[in-house]
């Protein structure tokens, strides 16, 4: 089992959700986060005072999957989230030891 985490541009979130839905991913956890990568932040000016705003808004998507689906889902997310410009975000995969479905007590593959 794997955890796929994607940090993407907020305006691509709806595209990613629709693409994952079409692929058959039935659930995910989404949070609004802040961060920056190579694009860094931006500058804001208030009454002539310029501020470097390091953090920019991002959306983090987390999905737990069977090993077999991981590569395809990563591709689906990366394709849907891409604009080709700097700051599109990242997708990464981490191993998961155990999963429990709270309602039924199902474990691991049965709980995915």
């Amino acid at each position, binding site marked *: 089992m794997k955890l796929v985490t994607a940090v993407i541009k907020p305006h691509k979130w709806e595209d990613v959700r629709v693409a994952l839905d079409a692929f058959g991913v039935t659930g995910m956890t989404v949070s609004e986060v802040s961060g920056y990568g190579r694009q860094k932040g931006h500058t*804001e*000016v*208030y*009454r*002539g*005072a310029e*501020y470097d705003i390091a953090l920019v808004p991002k959306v983090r998507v987390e999905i737990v999957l069977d090993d077999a689906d991981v590569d395809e889902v990563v591709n689906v997310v990366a394709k849907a989230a891409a604009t080709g410009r700097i700051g599109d975000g990242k997708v990464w995969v981490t191993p998961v030891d155990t999963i429990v479905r709270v309602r039924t007590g199902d474990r691991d593959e049965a709980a995915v």
Partner: protein
Amino acid sequence: MDGYYAWMIVATALVLMMTTPALALFYGGMTRAKSVLNMMMMSYVAMAVVGIVYVLWGWSESFGPHQLLGGLFANPFSLFGLKGVPWGSYIGVMFQLTFASITAALISGAIADRVKLSSWVVFLPLWVTLCYFPLAHMVWGGGWIATHLAAQDYAGGTVVHINAGVAGGVLALIIGRRIGFKKEPMKPHNLTLTMIGAGLLWFGWYGFNVGSLVFTAGDGGAKDTAQFMTETGVTFVNTTIATMAAMLAWLVVERYMHGKATSLGAASGIVAGLVAITPSCGAVDVVGAIVIGVVAGAACAWAVGLKYKMDLDDSLDVVGVHLVGGVVGTVLIGFLSTSSAPGGIDGLFYGGGLTSLGHQSAAAGISIVWTALFTTLIGLGIKHTIGWRIPAEDEVDGIDFAEHGESAYDFEGRGGSVLGGGALTGGGLKKTTTEGALA
């Protein structure tokens, strides 16, 4: 003159609204989230403290019958507690009360985030007694400036804006910079509040300017009615278009200098224009009002950057907007005043020569010197006795909790959900006033 009386009741309530809540919102939105409540409280408290002082000795010192020291102020005790003031004059007293309150409240923007509430409460009565009431007497109460200069100040370019602007600058210097000034980000936390505040200030300003009409004949009859029915139109129009011109000028300047027209620039431009047209709304025609608005908007947009060069933490630009805007409006009267406006005086551009310019500049200069002197005395007096600043740790953590035991926003959870407030912060309702400690 029933119509005039009814209008003055409305105008007085409008000006009261300018402090609570308009100025509190305007300033509050510009502070950081950890100090918005304190910033708003400085306006609310100023309204109450100055208001009480006003009926005790403020009216008497400003407009009382016994002049002292050649018209620098009037005896504060001859009408103490409004003793002997007829009820029919009460609305006039209240109208002037709201001016004193907002002038004092304006100063708070220069010293945001770092001042003990108790020191502010001590400062307020001292400052209005030594700076506001004397200037109000000198300019409007038949005092020294009124009798020695033919200076026009319709609604308070000198008494209100130069006065507050100088006091703000002096206090910012005496009290010192906020911790992290010019190093840490101190950007406005909620510009929607500031936009609402600026809009409400504009709305209330019609009471402020249009309500400041003074009858020349004073016959209580046909002549006064005719003046009321014409002059209010002029001051209303000038107040409106100067403000519009100033907002646009500010936006153009910052678009040129920084690349974007900002909402804070629009809100600031509105206030800059209102400040500058305050003394001049009865002195100029439509063209004059537009010129004053453009000059004020552009000058203030430029002036708010000076504090970084001067290393002066005038936090919300009381100097850059109120002193600069007040001087622009007061001095431009010397150029743009026209005898075809209610004030009836021609300035330099209308064939009046340098006379008006001289009187306007002198009135502005006297106001600056007077307030700078007495605000310095009060500011240093407080600094070396009870002190101004909250502890450094409290300032960094946020003055709202340190001074008021509150926080403005519930950032932790979605309000009303199980995660809102208690559960996620590990707390809950501990006790209530009526039931004591809860189990």
